[in-house]
C-alpha cells in the first residue's frame, strides 16, 4: 500500500501529510521519483525533512531543518483554504460508495457504538486539497454503501454533489487499499475498481465492498514492490518497524 500510494505523488507536489502510512509513502516518493515533493504537516511544519520517522504529527523532528514553520491559522487559512495544497492524505474508519469518509462515530452520533477521534483537519482537507488520496485496508465493514457519519465529504451524498456544493478541491481521487485501487467514476463519482494487485481476483475485491462494485474497462495491473522499494521502506525509512 505504501509503495502504491507513493506512486500517486508527482514530483513537485505540495502534500498535506499525516502520520503513519502517508508519511511513509511521502518519504518513499521523495527517495525515489519525487525528490522535490514539499511535505506540509497540519501542525505547521512546511518543507519538512524529518531525520527520524515522526511519532506524532507535531514531532520536533518535523520542525528541525524544515523550510518554514507556520501557525495553524496560516496552515488552514493560507495554505489549505488558500488553494496551495495539491495532495491531501486521508484515512478513516469508513469510506462509502461516493468517497465520503467517516472518522467521527460508528453508530449514531448521540448513542455511539464506537466513538472515533473526530475530524481533526480531515474535513477541510477533503474540501480544499486539489486531490485527496485515501489509504485504507478494504473490507465490507469499512467500505459500506453509506457511511454512518460524513466527516469528510466525497463526490456526492445527502448534502449534494461536489459541483452543487461548489467544493474548491477535487475530493478523493484515489483510494489505495491492500487489494486494489478505487477511483471515482467520471460520470457520477461512484468509486469503481481501477487497479488490482498481483494474485488478487476481481471477485474477491467485489466481496469486500458494500455496494455493487463497477470495474473499469482497462484495469491497471499493479506490479509488486521492487526489492529496492522494500529495502527503502524496511531498512531505511522505518527501520524500527513502527508502521510496517
Amino acid at each position: 500500500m505504501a509503495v502504491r500510494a507513493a506512486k500517486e505523488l508527482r514530483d513537485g507536489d505540495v502534500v498535506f501529510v499525516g502520520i503513519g502510512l502517508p508519511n511513509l509513502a511521502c518519504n518513499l516518493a521523495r527517495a525515489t521519483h519525487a525528490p522535490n515533493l514539499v511535505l506540509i504537516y497540519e501542525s505547521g511544519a512546511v518543507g519538512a525533512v524529518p531525520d527520524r520517522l515522526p511519532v506524532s504529527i507535531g514531532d520536533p523532528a518535523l520542525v528541525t531543518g524544515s523550510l518554514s514553520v507556520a501557525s495553524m491559522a496560516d496552515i488552514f487559512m493560507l495554505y489549505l483554504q488558500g488553494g496551495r495544497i495539491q495532495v491531501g492524505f486521508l484515512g478513516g474508519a469508513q469510506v462509502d460508495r461516493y468517497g465520503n469518509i467517516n472518522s467521527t462515530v460508528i453508530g449514531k452520533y448521540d448513542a455511539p457504538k464506537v466513538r472515533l477521534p473526530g475530524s481533526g483537519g480531515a474535513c477541510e482537507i477533503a474540501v480544499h486539497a486539489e486531490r485527496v488520496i485515501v489509504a485504507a485496508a478494504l473490507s465490507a465493514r469499512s467500505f459500506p454503501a453509506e457511511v454512518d457519519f460524513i466527516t469528510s465529504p466525497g463526490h456526492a451524498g445527502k448534502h449534494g454533489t461536489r459541483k452543487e456544493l461548489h467544493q474548491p478541491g477535487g475530493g478523493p481521487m484515489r483510494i489505495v487499499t491492500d487489494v486494489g485501487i478505487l477511483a471515482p467514476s467520471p460520470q457520477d463519482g461512484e468509486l469503481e475498481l481501477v487497479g488490482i494487485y498481483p494474485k488478487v481476483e476481481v471477485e474477491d475485491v467485489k466481496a469486500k465492498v458494500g455496494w455493487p462494485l463497477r470495474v473499469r474497462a482497462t484495469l491497471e495491473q499493479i506490479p509488486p514492490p521492487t526489492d529496492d522499494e522494500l529495502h527503502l521502506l524496511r531498512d531505511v525509512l522505518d527501520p524500527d518497524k513502527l508502521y510496517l
Partner: protein
Amino acid sequence: MTAAGIGSGGPAGARAPVSSAKLMSMSDAVSRYVHDGDVVVIEGFTHLICFAAAHEIIRQRRRDLTLCRLTPDLIYDQMIAAGCAKKLIFSWAGNPGVGSLFALRRAVEKGIPHKLEIEEYSHYGLMARFAAGAAKLPFWPLRNYRGSDLPDVNRQIRTVICPYTGEELATVPAINPDVAIIHAQRADAGGDAQIWGLYGVQKEAAFAAKRVILVVEEIVSEAIIRADPNRTLIPGIIVDAVVHEPWGAHPSYAQGYYDRDNDFYVAWENISKEEAGLQAWLDEFVFGVADRNEYLLKLGPAVRERLNAEDQVCEGVNYGF
C-alpha cells in the same frame, strides 16, 4: 440628540503592572486565576502542552470547567478522569500516534466519573473560534463544512452570505475563554514570551482569553527578549501571571529543551484503559506530589537524561540600522 454615552463601552484593558509582580508559583497562579466553572484553554499542538498547570488544577480540585483544546490529548484525559470537567470543546480526540483517550470515552459513553458534554469542530473550525475571540469579532467566516455532517450535530456551525458574491460561507462563533494557560520556551518577568518550533494556536488562544497564565522553561532578562523582538509571540501586556516551571510540558515537549516522551504516550494506553489504573496513576503522580519539582524527582533522572535536547543552535540575524 440626547445622551452621547461618553466613555461608555471602553474595554476593560488591564493596566500593565510593574513587571516582577507577575512572577508567581503555579499554585498561586492557579488559585488566583482559575475558578470553578471557568472556560479554560490549555493549548499547544503536540508541542508546549502545559501538563504542570493541569496537574495543579487537578490538585486544587477545580470543578465544572469547560475545557477547550483542539486535541484533548493526555492532558484533558487526566483532567476529565479527575472530575474537573463539565464540558469539552475539541476537534480531534485521540492519543496522537497511539490510540484512544479512555477517560474521555468513559465520560462520554458511560458518564464516568460523570457525564461530559461535548461540542465538536474540525481543527480549522476551532482554530477559527480562537481567531475570532482574539480579534474580538463575534464570528469567523470559513469555506468549510459543505457536504459534511458536522453542522448537523453542532448548531454553533452556521452560515453567512457574502455581501459581494452572494456565496454562502460557514461560520463559527468567537470563543473568549476565562483563562488561557500558555507554555513557552522563555519570557522576561513581564511575560513577553518567545516561542519557536510549532506555534499551534498559542497566540490566538492567549489573545482570546480574559486572563493569561504564562508558563516558561526559562525566565530571561528583558535584554534577551529585546535583542530579537521578531521571536516574541505573546506580549507581556496581555499576561497576568508568569510561572517558571522547567519541564512543565512533559510528557509533551519543548523544542530546544526536551523531546516528546513517546514512551509515556504509549504507556498511557494501559494506564488509562481501566478507571482504577488511571486513578492510581493520578494518586501517585498528581495527588502524591506537592508540585512539579516533586513530580520530576519521582520521574527520576533517567527520563530527563533520555529526553534532554541536543544542541542545534541557529545563527542570529542583524537588527542594526
